[in-house]
């Protein structure tokens, strides 16, 4: 009570105390500073990242938003061979943290796993390996589904079926085995025995045809068979070849710049000359035209008789300052009247026809040309018979004389001898005892002798491994 009284009292008198004493406002100032401090601390407590109410609501909202985002982008598919492909496409990373395996007898088993599916990527999960990991290498019978649980509480349930996959394995098995031996010291190769020995070497040598002499690696024949080239005939020790002579026909020719026409040569020449200035008479046409002609008649005076009807004529005369008027009857009469007839002009149009007339004009000097054709007889060149160089014209044939060639096919003629390379017979190996030659070795193959022993031999067997195959039935939710 005393506190509230004191506070009320101080509050009531604060304004007055402030005016009177500066120290009197101190309690109120301290109170407001403390109040502001309390407000700050309270706001900080409400919005604290660890314990603040608002921050917790924001965290929950973020968690729910991320969960909804993960659920919307999650999909699963089967890739065969027991692989389950999980895909996330909504911008968050899906962490699979638990796996639950259920059997058809109502049992279920769960185990923590760790698979991360980043956004935009696909994670392949081997369900067979996963279940074997959960059940110590075994796959329980009657397994019906596998559920994967993400860190945001979303499940992917895949129905699975168990498949027996055959595999070929090799095991050791005791069997009676036929073993081969080579009694004559041969080497066992497969089911045969092989004996080898050195082949006999036969060295190579040169040989020449009959009638030729072997000199080194060449064959030489002295005075071999003569032969004439180009179909010539041997006459004594000379080859004579004959061929028809060539005949050249006669022809006309013209000098350079002339053009032949038949037996004549033609040439066109152009001559320039100067025509001096001169007068010349030319016939010109004067065109017709339309002309006008005016004829005028002058005016003149003429008399004519006119009847003047009777009428009263008024007369006046003065007398002493008085004016007297009287009328006199004038009877009708014929009167001669002088009348002016005015002149006039008439204009006539007429056509003057055109006509030719001659006149003398001056033509200035100018250069002009004149082309003339000249003709002369063409030159005749008569035909003749000729032979190629080195042959002689005899009658109408050309004959060529040459020494004979020695017949030396594939060889070289030196003087009157023909030299050809001798034939080389290379050396070779042979197997005198019926072996088969392989390189420089003879090989004899014969059937091995067999006997029976018991030993362990590898045998291929088929075993069946149990694998899980996800069926096309997915359930994703949370």
């Amino acid at each position, binding site marked *: 009570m005393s506190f509230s009284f004191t506070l009320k009292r101080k509050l009531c008198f604060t304004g007055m105390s402030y005016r009177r004493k500066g120290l009197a406002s101190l309690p109120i100032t301290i109170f407001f500073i403390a109040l502001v401090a309390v407000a700050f601390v309270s706001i900080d407590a409400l919005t604290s990242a660890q314990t603040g109410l608002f921050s*917790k609501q924001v*965290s929950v909202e973020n*968690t*729910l938003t991320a969960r909804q985002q993960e659920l919307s982008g999650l999909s699963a598919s089967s890739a065969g061979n027991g692989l389950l492909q999980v895909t996330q496409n909504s911008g968050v990373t899906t962490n699979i943290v638990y796996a639950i395996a*259920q059997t058809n007898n109502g049992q279920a088993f769960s185990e923590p796993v760790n698979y991360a599916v980043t956004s935009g990527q696909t994670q392949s999960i081997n369900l067979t390996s996963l279940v074997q990991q959960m059940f110590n290498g075994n796959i329980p019978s009657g397994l019906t589904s596998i559920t994967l649980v993400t860190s945001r*509480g979303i499940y992917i349930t895949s129905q699975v079926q168990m498949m027996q996959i055959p595999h070929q394995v090799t095991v050791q098995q005791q069997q009676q085995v036929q073993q081969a031996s080579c009694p004559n010291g041969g080497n066992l190769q497969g089911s045969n025995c092989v004996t080898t020995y050195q082949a006999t070497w036969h060295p190579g040598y040169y040989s020449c045809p009959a009638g030729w002499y072997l000199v080194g690696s060449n064959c030489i024949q002295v005075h071999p068979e003569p032969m004439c080239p180009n179909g010539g005939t041997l006459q004594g020790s000379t080859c004579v070849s004959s061929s028809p002579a060539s005949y050249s026909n006669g022809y006309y020719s013209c000098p350079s710049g002339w053009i032949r026409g038949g037996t004549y040569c033609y040439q066109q020449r152009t001559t320039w000359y100067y025509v001096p200035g001169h007068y010349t008479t030319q016939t010109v046409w004067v065109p017709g035209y339309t002309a006008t002609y005016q004829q005028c008649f002058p005016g003149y005076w003429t008399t004519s008789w006119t009847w003047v009807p009777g009428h009263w004529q008024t007369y006046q005369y003065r007398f002493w300052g008085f004016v007297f008027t009287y009328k006199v009857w004038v009877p009708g009469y014929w009167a001669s009247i002088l009348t002016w007839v005015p002149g006039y002009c008439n204009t006539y149009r007429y056509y003057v026809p055109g006509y030719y007339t001659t006149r003398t004009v001056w033509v200035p000097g100018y250069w002009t040309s004149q082309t003339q054709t000249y003709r002369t007889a063409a030159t005749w060149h008569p035909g003749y018979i000729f032979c190629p160089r080195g042959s002689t014209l005899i009658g109408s044939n050309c004959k060529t004389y040459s020494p004979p060639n020695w017949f030396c096919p594939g060889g070289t003629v030196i003087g009157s001898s023909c030299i050809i390379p001798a034939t080389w017979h290379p050396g070779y190996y042979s197997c005198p005892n019926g072996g088969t030659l392989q390189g420089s070795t003879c090989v004899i193959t014969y059937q091995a002798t067999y006997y029976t022993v018991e030993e362990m031999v590898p045998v291929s067997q088929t075993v069946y491994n149990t694998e899980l195959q996800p069926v096309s039935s997915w359930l994703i939710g949370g």
Partner: protein
Amino acid sequence: MKKKRAVSEVVAALLLLVVTVGVFGIFYAYYVNGLSSSSTSVSQEIQNSNKATGELMSLVSYQVQGNTITLYLYNYGLQPITLNPPQKAFLISGSQQQQANDFGLSDATSNKPINTIQTQELAQLSLTFNNIPSSGSFYIEIIDSIGKNFEFQLSAG
């Protein structure tokens, strides 16, 4: 007279400071730790509401075997969720509601009995009812230690 007024102003200022700090201390104690009181206070309700907001749990799998339903519950929230006590679970089918006779909560991997599902943890909850529908869908409602309800829809058969 002047001397007495000066002393009373200083004393009043100190008293105001003490009162302000005291009020703040009481508020902070209520908010952060709560007061040790047997009865449910307003601050306790605020704390429970705050905790309930952070409790998030999903049903990821379940099995029905006879009269027993086994639920696989995953805590993806920010708070541990305590179900034992109160061990309250109900099966709601249409207008019928029945409470679970048997309530067994265990770790899904080790099968050890637990009372609280920690965050990021998978738990196995076995519930036994007198009558479980053999067809159609029904609901399982679970109430945790702070009174928050978790309702899950299940399909029979």
